[in-house]
């Protein structure tokens, strides 16, 4: 087997690995980005977070915390969806 031919065989595999690593990174980034969005929203509009000023608020106002919902979704995605998905992606790479 010539060196040129062998190099030609290896090149697509390296390219494919790089692309799949980018896919892993993208999947792992979705959760933290969502968490960051929720935190940023809480910082920009703290008055929407009723837990910061709970006195005199009804039960629904204490349950309805939209910024925390966004953070929870990000965490849920990171630890429930992304973890298994990355395992499957890495198995796919092998």
């Amino acid at each position, binding site marked *: 087997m010539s060196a040129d031919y062998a190099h030609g065989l290896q090149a697509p595999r390296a390219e494919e690995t790089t692309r799949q690593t980018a*896919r892993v990174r*993208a*999947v792992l980034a*979705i*959760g933290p980005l*969502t968490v960051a969005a929720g935190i940023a929203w809480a910082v920009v509009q703290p*008055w929407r977070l009723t837990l910061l000023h709970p006195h005199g608020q009804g039960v*629904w106002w204490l*349950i*309805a915390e*939209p910024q925390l*919902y*966004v953070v*929870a*979704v990000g965490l*849920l*995605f990171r630890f429930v*969806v*992304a973890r*298994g*998905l990355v395992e*499957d*992606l890495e198995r*796919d790479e092998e």
Partner: protein
Amino acid sequence: MILAGIEPRAEFVHWWFATGFLVLGLALYAEVVVGPEVWARRPWRRYLWPGMCFLMGVLMWPVMAFYTNSMIHMVAHGSWAQVLMLAGAAELGLVRGKLHSPYWRLLTAAGLAVSGTALLVHEQNGWFFERAAFLHHTLGWLVIGAASFPLLQAFRPRSIVAASGFATTFVVMAVLLYCDRDLAPVFGHLSTFAGVPHR
């Protein structure tokens, strides 16, 4: 009316639906990134979108029952519940292997078209009446436009553009629903007939 004191405000319900849509949007984005084969490797992931679609259809029934301000609200929410359940059931059938034709995805397109129409029809006020009115109009047209994505997927199931557009639709819907308030101005506009903003 008896429940008026204990039932959650409409904005809270919108935020809960927004959370569901956000979960769906992120999952659909992830599916676009990894591809349908890797996504389908675990059964529960395959059932996530169809199951959530069906569940949201089921949850629209209590919305219809408890948030019926008028006949048009009841018809809009009821038809919305039916098409979401129908689309979810078709997608469940496809995932389970009971249904085979990709044209069953046309029901999802129909579900979105009916959902968008329901949003527009049951909003009786103009765009700048108050924030909820603006969001209903925006969401309505967004969802009607987004029906083109599953329509495209029915004919080109592996289209990245259609899958990405479909995922983006849910994330944008979540953002818009999170913006909802029962009574708040929109871009500085608030009709004098809307009432007093509460927050």
